[in-house]
């Protein structure tokens, strides 16, 4: 794609085809001869893992759709019959339900990889923003998918989340009615969510193509965060990256398989095996685990901020927590990409990671729970959520912009090749 094509059609048919539609050349340049930095570590295999998971979700989803009935009177029973009656239905549903969780585990690792190695910095801004869009679409797809089995968590999750829109003044209520197609979540909601749940993964596939295209224009980042300078810094995608990707895909599949076969309901919520009941809200509603950090941020804002009431404030903070990612290329002012060479950034980054996990935990407990029964730390969970939310935003809006000016990075190696040679020849290093 970027003018390095080495593809030479060998057969007569290959030549004939090449002159009419050079798609084989495109694939060859993308997945065979494409030069990758020679120092990539295992974290760079998660792009391939994500692509595989998208295919898994689409294949299992299309099969589920053959047996599922999007009608609020029978949706719950149809999922139960997939589990009990359909040949291998239990396997396909568990692959799909746990596949969504695996998809998110992989995307979070993929995102944190980018955060640490500065993969969002020039010239990869568009690549990064396309990634944020994929992440948003994934969240929408997973949310609507979770509504389909029409259990208690499906129903109340859909109610609470579509009610986010009512926080907007004036237009909020009409938007919510338009989204759910009624005065409360009902059959109309279920039907449109099914239609959109089927559509979104294909939109994701489309954005993935753009994401990979952008990647192949600017090239991959690498653990050192320095630019590829010569051919010596790279190896061809096949066999080097391909074999590494395949190995990590297999390891990931073992992890995924463990959940599917041994703990298929561990990541779900038992209340979703109770059919939706519009008259009774479960005592403690929680979203799926991958939304918990954002749920904690939503609940942390229980105070009015000037003219913005607590409800709108919570919703804005929650969406803002995702939107801020799109501005990251311009918020981080440091010229150095990789966190390896940034001593203060490193600390802030790991704190951010721990803080994100802590937010996830906070999203899973009740707001008035006491987390630490230690004098002086025995605050309600909502107090911790406020502190954590503060750090989440401070990382993006204060720490990263300021660090670029005050931090003194360690010296960068001259090239990827030099750095590797220095490492593999310890005699010359001392």
């Amino acid at each position, binding site marked *: 794609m970027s003018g390095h094509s080495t593809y030479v059609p060998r057969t007569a048919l290959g030549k004939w085809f090449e002159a009419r539609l050079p798609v084989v050349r495109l694939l060859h340049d993308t997945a065979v001869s494409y030069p990758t930095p020679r120092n990539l570590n295992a974290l760079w295999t998660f792009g391939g893992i994500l692509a595989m998971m998208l295919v898994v979700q689409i294949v299992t989803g299309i099969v589920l759709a053959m047996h599922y009935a999007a009608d609020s009177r029978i949706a719950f029973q149809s999922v139960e019959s997939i589990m009990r009656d359909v040949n291998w239905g239990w396997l396909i549903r568990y692959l799909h339900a746990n596949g969504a969780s695996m998809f998110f585990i992989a995307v979070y690792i993929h995102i944190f990889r980018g955060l640490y190695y500065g993969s969002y910095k020039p010239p990869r801004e568009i690549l990064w923003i396309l990634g944020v869009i994929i992440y948003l679409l994934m969240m929408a797809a997973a949310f609507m998918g979770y509504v389909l089995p029409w259990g208690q968590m499906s129903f*109340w999750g859909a*109610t*609470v989340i*579509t*009610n*986010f829109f*009512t926080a907007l003044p004036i237009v909020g209520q009409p938007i919510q*009615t*338009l*989204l759910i*197609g*009624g*005065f*409360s*979540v*009902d059959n*109309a909601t279920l039907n*449109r969510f099914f239609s959109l749940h089927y559509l979104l993964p294909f939109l994701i596939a489309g954005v993935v193509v753009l994401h990979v295209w952008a990647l192949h224009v600017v090239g991959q980042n690498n653990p050192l965060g320095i630019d590829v300078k010569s051919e010596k810094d790279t190896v061809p995608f096949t066999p080097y990256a391909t074999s590494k990707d395949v190995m990590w895909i297999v390891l990931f599949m073992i992890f995924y398989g463990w959940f599917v076969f041994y703990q298929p309901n561990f990541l779900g919520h038992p209340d979703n095996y109770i059919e939706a009941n*519009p*008259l*009774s*809200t*479960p*005592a*403690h*509603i929680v979203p799926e685990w991958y939304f918990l950090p954002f749920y904690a941020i939503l*609940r942390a804002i*229980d105070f009015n901020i000037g003219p913005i*009431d*607590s*409800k709108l404030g*919570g919703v804005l903070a929650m969406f803002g927590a995702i939107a801020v990612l799109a501005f990251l290329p311009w918020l981080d002012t440091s010229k150095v990409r990789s966190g390896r060479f940034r001593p203060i950034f490193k600390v802030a980054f790991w704190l951010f990671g721990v803080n994100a996990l802590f937010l996830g935990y906070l999203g899973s407990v*009740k*707001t*008035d729970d006491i987390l630490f029964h230690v004098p002086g730390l025995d605050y309600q969970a909502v107090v911790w959520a406020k502190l954590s939310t503060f750090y989440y935003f401070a990382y993006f809006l204060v720490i990263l912009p300021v660090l670029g000016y005050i931090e003194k990075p360690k010296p960068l190696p001259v090239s990827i090749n030099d750095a590797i040679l220095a490492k593999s020849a310890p005699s010359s290093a001392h």
Partner: protein
Amino acid sequence: MAESDTPAEPTRRDFLLHAAGAFGVVGVAAAAWPFIDQMNPDASTRALASVEVDISGVQPGQAITVMWRGKPVVIRNRTEKEVEEGKAVKLEELKDPLARNANADASADASDANRAAAGKENILVMTKVCTHLGCIPLDESGEFGGWFCPCHGSVYDTSGRIRSGPAPENLPIPPYAFLTDTKIRIG
């Protein structure tokens, strides 16, 4: 095609281009509307506009819940104590100062009298959907003896007014009328 200089006057081609463009924009907007509006509640949902309820069996301290437009509406026959508690609250203490009663003026204050049924201060008819994010609050619970929402902890008093927690407004009162002394039509 002898002339090589562009004429200063708008040409016929410019006119056609702009006219077609303008028609195109209006046409696309008009064609988009049905595709957006089809998502709004359909005729059968809108038709569920009213229900009639017999409340003769509801003793003081009891309540019934009926569905109206897919939402639960509670009809509570309040005890004297509940009514007194509702009346005793000063308006300044309320988070939401408005009655939120579809049968009263939009600017009516949230006094207990403006929330209870006209002429029947013991009867409270109210949509039992939390004004925060739409969960169903539990009856006879919370520190004000009214309703408590388990989702994010909003507390409503015996008149259904928001007293603490993230919910911004009092529980809304739907349009309703007494057909007879013991029969109510909601909607």
